[in-house]
């Protein structure tokens, strides 16, 4: 029934064992010191990512069939997301080394990061709604704790409560959606649910629409699409910046992994009109995110709004998915790129917070002189987020807008998505450019270089190499994203 050598099982065993072991070591160990737990966590994450790559290279992993009668499937779609999530986990862990040095309970902190990583990885592999929901909660519950990690800090607690209330409500809505889907089709397996939806009698169709609407609302809370985005800036601003990196780059992308499976379901249940609805949401999301980001004076909050805007770009690819063949491929490519860019930006902010203790945008004047490597890493990731040509963000945005224009052959509204995307990119360059201007072209009189945390430098160097490397030679990742796209054939035709 369950293949114990498949990637998701082995990943669960590696990450779960280490994640449970770390608090035990903490109890058994007499001396204090946080770095040992960080190193163990990093080792587990590196072993997992190595294992995923080894499985892709050696074993003939199924071309993303996406459906299976089991609860988990070992396919390239899952492996793609697993790699993205594990990279985010590694960046968060390494970025936390310095941040956690003087703080309480490092063992619990790293253990929760590992548990949350298992959840994120399993979401991408699961083919059953029960498994999807359990992994969703396994991902979410540790992040509620992590967001409120600074328990003496009122804003961290406030962020955690807001995040928790919205997150718990969203999971309640997801279960309700699942219960309707189960009632209509008699199964929780995604393949059978889709098959059941496509043979539904017309008078039951509104209920199927309700179920898919509830899925979109539930997953949309985590993704941060616009009517459900209110909690997101508060949660990212109040929680520790390293955790903001995990939330923005990790849990948000896992939400997309879940949404991709559901949207295929929606494609059959709702025929073509859902694509238009999603396109409207995409445009509203990116515009609201970018417009709100311009007004912000706090670096974390600005990045939070910019991540709402980026969710809008990714939705472009999802909304044209049934029409254009490269839609999902472009979305996957942008998901991977955005994970690294956003995690790098938040880790840079974490570095600034630990050394200078500021997040206000007026206070980072002269950062280019004070913390040259962090400032350079932040600049590169911001430029990549804006989509400046030689960087990876440019290629994925090009593919996203290209897919929208490509879909224009079939539906007349699709090219407007590309236009909105380009206008929004220009808009976003305004506030990214503002941060860069503050860092390099203004100073507050102090020119002295401060000592930068080594762990932040390591993350910055990795992300600069990743961003520029993929920007110069994007082909392998584009091919990988292409092979990860689920095969739509074999499904009932979209009508």
């Amino acid at each position, binding site marked *: 029934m369950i293949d114990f050598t498949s990637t998701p099982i082995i990943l669960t065993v590696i990450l779960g064992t280490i994640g449970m072991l770390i608090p035990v070591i903490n109890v058994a160990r007499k001396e204090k010191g946080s770095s040992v737990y960080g190193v163990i966590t990093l080792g587990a994450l590196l072993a997992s990512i190595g294992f995923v790559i080894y499985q892709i290279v050696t074993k003939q992993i199924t071309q993303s069939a996406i459906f299976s009668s089991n609860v988990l499937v070992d396919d390239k779609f899952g492996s793609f997301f697993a790699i993205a999530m594990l990279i985010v986990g590694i960046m968060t862990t390494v970025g936390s080394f310095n941040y956690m040095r003087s703080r309480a309970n490092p063992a619990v902190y790293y253990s929760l990061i590992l548990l949350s990583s298992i959840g994120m990885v399993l979401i991408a592999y699961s083919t059953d709604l*029960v498994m999807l929901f359990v992994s969703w909660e396994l991902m979410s519950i540790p992040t509620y704790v992590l967001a409120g990690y600074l328990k003496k800090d009122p804003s961290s607690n*406030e962020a*955690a*409560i*807001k995040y928790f*209330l919205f997150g718990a409500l969203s999971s309640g809505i997801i*279960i309700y959606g699942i219960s309707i889907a189960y009632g209509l089709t008699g*199964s*929780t397996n995604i393949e059978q649910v889709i098959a059941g939806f496509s043979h539904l009698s017309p008078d039951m169709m509104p209920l199927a629409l309700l179920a898919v609407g509830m899925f979109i609302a539930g997953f949309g809370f985590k993704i941060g699409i616009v009517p459900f985005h209110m909690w997101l800036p508060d949660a990212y601003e109040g929680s520790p910046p390293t955790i903001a990196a995990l939330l923005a780059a990790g849990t948000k992308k896992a939400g997309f992994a879940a949404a991709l499976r559901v949207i295929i379901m929606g494609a059959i249940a709702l025929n073509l009109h859902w694509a238009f609805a999603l396109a409207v949401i995409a445009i509203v999301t990116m515009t609201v995110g970018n417009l709100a980001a311009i007004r912000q004076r706090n670096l974390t909050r600005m990045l939070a709004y910019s991540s709402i805007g980026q969710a809008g770009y990714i939705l472009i690819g999802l909304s044209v998915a049934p029409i254009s063949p490269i839609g999902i491929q472009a979305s996957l490519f942008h998901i991977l790129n955005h994970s690294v860019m956003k995690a790098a930006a938040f880790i840079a902010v974490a570095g600034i917070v630990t050394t200078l203790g500021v997040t206000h945008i007026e206070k980072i004047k002269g950062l280019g002189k004070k913390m040259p490597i962090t400032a350079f890493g932040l600049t590169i990731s911001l430029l990549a987020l804006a989509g400046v040509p030689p960087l990876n963000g440019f290629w994925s945005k090009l593919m996203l807008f290209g897919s929208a224009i490509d879909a224009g052959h079939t539906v007349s509204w699709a090219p407007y998505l590309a236009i909105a995307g380009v206008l929004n990119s220009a808009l976003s360059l305004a506030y990214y450019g503002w941060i860069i201007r503050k860092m390099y072209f203004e100073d507050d009189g102090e020119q002295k270089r401060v000592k930068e945390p080594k762990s932040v430098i390591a993350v910055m160097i990795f992300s600069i190499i990743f961003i520029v490397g993929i920007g110069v030679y994007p082909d392998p990742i584009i091919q990988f994203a292409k092979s990860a796209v689920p095969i739509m054939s074999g499904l009932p035709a979209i009508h």
Partner: protein
Amino acid sequence: MTNGLIDFILVSVALLAIGIYGIAVKRNAIRMLFGIEMVVNSANLNLVAFSRYIPNSQGQTFALFSIAIAAAEVAVGLALVIVAYRMYRNIDIADFRSLKG
């Protein structure tokens, strides 16, 4: 639909509506937690009722999973509320407004 099933669905929809009302209107963190519990339990009721009428056991299995998960979730939520109470001596979420922009 079978005669008995519709009753279960009506109760479940009523619970869902009460839960959402509670989350939308109340400003006390514990009351909001109640609202979330009601949403989750309305879904559980749905699952069990469907499972009885389809009939197969998947729904009941899922309801068990979901009850366990909801318990874990509420434990975390209550812990957060306790920390908030220690700081503010109050659990009215309208008073938590240090984050703005």
